[in-house]
């Protein structure tokens, strides 16, 4: 049954992505009134599908790439809705909603061929580890998006381009606050996720686990993350340089994600 709810959510996210374009780019209030309720409805269906899926499988965490993608999509929409609630801007919907739609599309077609068969999936700590890291990814995506928006808006204001062009973009200060808040939130999630993961790995596999490329890259990402936070906090870094730093962390994230295929001890999928 969860697949049906997931498909409904996918359709609603698709609709929300389409309505986000006139709502944001055309600044049409009528479309904004459609976009938000459709997104919220999609999120509710998605959440129900997520809970139903976990309950049916008698476990606490998503297993397999499809389910992880679906969870990440849910977290991205959650972040989008939280940002809308706090800053009253739906500009991020132009990118976040299509991204959420694309992420949910494959899981909505059908379940994974391969799943993670270990009994550890019923361990609550593993669930916390996965959820926290996915939340960190979602937060970093928004941090990068806000930094990019900041850069574009800054260029636009400096170049004194025609007012109609990219008029929909939120104010610089709002984007800076979103970038900072999501960066800090993501850092806390990532620290918690890595700590929990390290304790579990130490307990079950010993020190060898920490020589795995995926695990090593994860720690590199955490260190780089810490550096960005420190630099931003101490110098008030904004604009181009902040985008470069956020982009660097994002590239590392993608590498960490991709390193799953080269990892011998940390794999989502087993045949």
């Amino acid at each position: 049954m969860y697949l049906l709810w997931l498909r409904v959510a996918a359709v609603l996210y698709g609709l929300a992505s389409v309505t986000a374009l006139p709502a944001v780019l055309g600044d049409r209030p009528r479309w904004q009134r459609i976009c938000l309720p459709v997104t919220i409805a999609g999120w509710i269906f998605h959440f129900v599908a997520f809970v139903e899926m976990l309950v049916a499988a008698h476990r606490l965490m998503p297993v397999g790439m499809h389910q992880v993608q679906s969870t990440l999509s849910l977290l991205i929409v959650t972040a989008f809705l939280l940002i809308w609630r706090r800053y009253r801007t739906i500009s991020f919907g132009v990118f976040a909603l299509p991204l959420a739609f694309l992420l949910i599309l494959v899981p909505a077609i059908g379940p994974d061929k391969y799943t993670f068969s270990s009994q550890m999936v019923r361990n609550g700590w593993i669930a916390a580890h996965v959820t926290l890291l996915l939340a960190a990814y979602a937060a970093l995506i928004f941090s990068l998006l806000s930094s990019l928006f900041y850069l574009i808006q800054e260029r636009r204001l400096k170049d004194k381009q025609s007012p109609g062009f990219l008029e929909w973009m939120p104010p610089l200060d709002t984007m800076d606050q979103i970038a900072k808040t999501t960066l800090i939130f993501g850092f806390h999630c990532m620290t918690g996720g890595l700590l929990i993961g390290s304790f579990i790995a130490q307990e079950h596999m010993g020190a060898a686990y920490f020589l795995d490329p995926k695990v090593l890259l994860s720690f590199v990402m955490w260190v780089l993350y810490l550096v960005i936070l420190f630099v931003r906090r101490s110098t008030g870094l904004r604009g181009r340089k902040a985008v470069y730093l956020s982009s660097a962390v994002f590239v590392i994230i993608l590498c960490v994600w991709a390193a799953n295929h080269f990892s011998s001890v940390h794999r989502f999928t087993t045949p």
Partner: protein
Amino acid sequence: MKILLTGVNHKTAPVELREQLAIAPDRLSDATRALLEFPGVHEAMILSTCNRVELLACHEASSPDLLGFLRSYLGIDPTSLRPHAYEYRETDAVQHLFRVAASLDSMVVGEPQILGQVKESYTAARSVGAVQTHLEKLLQSTFTVAKKVRNETQIGSSSVSIASVAVDLAKKIFGSLEGKRVLLVGAGKMSELAARHLLQQGADSLLVTNRTHDRAVRLANNFQAQAVRFDDLYTTADQADIIITSTGSQEYIFRREHGQQFLHKRRNRPMFFIDIAVPRDIDPEMNRVDGVFLYDIDDLQSVSASHLDERTREAQRAEAIIAEEVLRFQRKAQALNVTPMIVNLQNTVEELRQAELRRAQARLQSLTPEQQAAVEAVTRGLMNKFLHMPMQALKAAALEADTVMLEVMREVFHLPAAQELTQEQARMQTQKQAPEQTQEQSTPRPVAETQTADAPAEPVTAGEQKGRHS
């Protein structure tokens, strides 16, 4: 019932005349009551703003002399007023009212205040009973159309004055202006205006500096701001988020290196520089510093001009909406004009009654004149009683705009269609009014040209033709 609108606005009359005609808000109800009591006026409303004074009236066959009302109420000589006044009737009056409320006839097209002013006039007129069935429908349609124009076009979405453009840009940088500090360097009218706008929009505090410190103190007192000595300018400037410069200096006051210093002290928090001075006070290179945004007077004017262009484009879309809505209103009004239907119904039944009486004439001849009068009274009474309910139903259907019900009634009583009635009525009215009202037309024209028909006692002044857009 017919609609007549007479008035002057910023396009047709100089401010000296408009200020004589202006009616203060506290006198608006009294003035509307006086207009309602004016001969020939059945319903009325007065719209008085700084840019226009307009009298809107519903009347029967003969037009009231609305300029005569202004003469009697305000004591203004109509001969001085007539060349500047315009007059719209029927559909043109409806269209003009829609355009006014939608801010297409305003000095700054798209400004939002006018709709509120029309609503205030409506409230004042309603409070004295000057708005009833016809004006109520017209004004409700007016408000709906104005709202539709605002929702479906971007006519009022962008600022066009230099000061409001500056405020908009500041908001694009800082979001909310709450807690932001403004520094005014030098004193000029436009910079003061921009500072005032920024403070009104929530800017927290204002610092003022000038080469002549006394002048800075005077200006600071006006704004309840803090005066800063000009020598302390470079040590204070980094405390301000927005700096407005308008000095008479021949050299740059702020250079790129100043911007870099300020940003370093502010830990890269952005700064917005507005340079209104000519020659400029700020080196254009300052804009290259990360986190500094510099706009000079030309930049602001260029933004304002693009906003104006945008409004002009949107105004064309708004005109199309209004044309469509006027047609819709006209069709609705035609469908709801049930008076001819009622008259036709009464005539038909009266003819039937007379025919029956003629048929029974031979048998009634033996009756005494008193008895015959009683028969006449009884048949007439019966006719009126039978007609009472259908006529009430027709009126109720008209009030509720129930066109289906009207059509059913028309079919049941074999009445001619509303359009046929309107044409027939118009023909009869033309025949009836031809001798004395040949010049009374529904096309808009200056009052001076129509005055022969409306107020023959007044001398006619040759006024130039004032189109709607003049």
